[in-house]
């Protein structure tokens, strides 16, 4: 009974993830459709993978790497959002996020080395 419940839950989870991954690809089949309006669902799958590594990473270095990757992915997310909406201030957010993600990664690296922030 417990195995059946686990199997049902895992099936629902896998089906939802596959649907999220395949839903924008289905809109590629019709020419000049709104693929870009749906394509950030693929990046949301990548966000879920990075957050899983933040949650389950065995060492602090894994979590730092996953946070750095998440910061780079958000830049692409903002760039994709700026195309179908037509608002160019999403790219301002992307540039600012890239800057602060770089500084945050350097600060995390210094923390991992065990040095102080003012050396």
């Amino acid at each position, binding site marked *: 009974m417990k195995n059946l419940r686990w199997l049902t839950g895992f099936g629902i989870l896998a089906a939802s993830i596959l649907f999220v991954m395949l839903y924008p690809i289905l809109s*590629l089949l019709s020419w*000049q459709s709104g*693929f*870009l309006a749906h*394509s950030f669902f*693929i*990046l949301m*799958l*990548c966000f879920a*993978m*990075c957050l*899983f*590594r933040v949650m389950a990473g065995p*060492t*602090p*270095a*894994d979590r*730092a*790497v*996953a946070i*750095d*990757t998440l910061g*780079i*992915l958000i*830049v*692409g997310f903002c*760039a*994709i959002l*700026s*195309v179908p909406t037509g608002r*160019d201030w999403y*790219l*301002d957010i*992307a*540039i600012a996020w*890239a*800057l602060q*993600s*770089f500084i945050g*990664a*350097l600060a*995390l*690296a*210094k*923390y*991992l*080395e*065990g040095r102080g922030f003012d050396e």
Partner: protein
Amino acid sequence: MNSLQHAAGMIFIVIGLGFDVFGCIGLIRLPDVYNRLQATTKCVTLGTCSILLGTFILKGLGTTGVKAILAAIFLLLTSPVAAHALARGAHKSGVKLWPKSVADKYEQDRN
């Protein structure tokens, strides 16, 4: 926007999305901090730069396209530096390598 420009931009964005997905699969599947770092920092950086290049092709040479090219150049300049600093910090904080690893040149150079 003519049809050729639209098709080229879409192709670049689809290639970038594929690179992002495979980089994040490598982040989950690989066994070690250093392997995960070398999987993600190349795949995700180049995938995001491909997405920004596709945005530039779709939008043309306006304010949006120039901002996209600026973000791509900034990302190409800063992401290897951050990855190198993270790998150095991880090695200095004493993270063990995967047991099947072959060589550790950085440890040999420090001794």
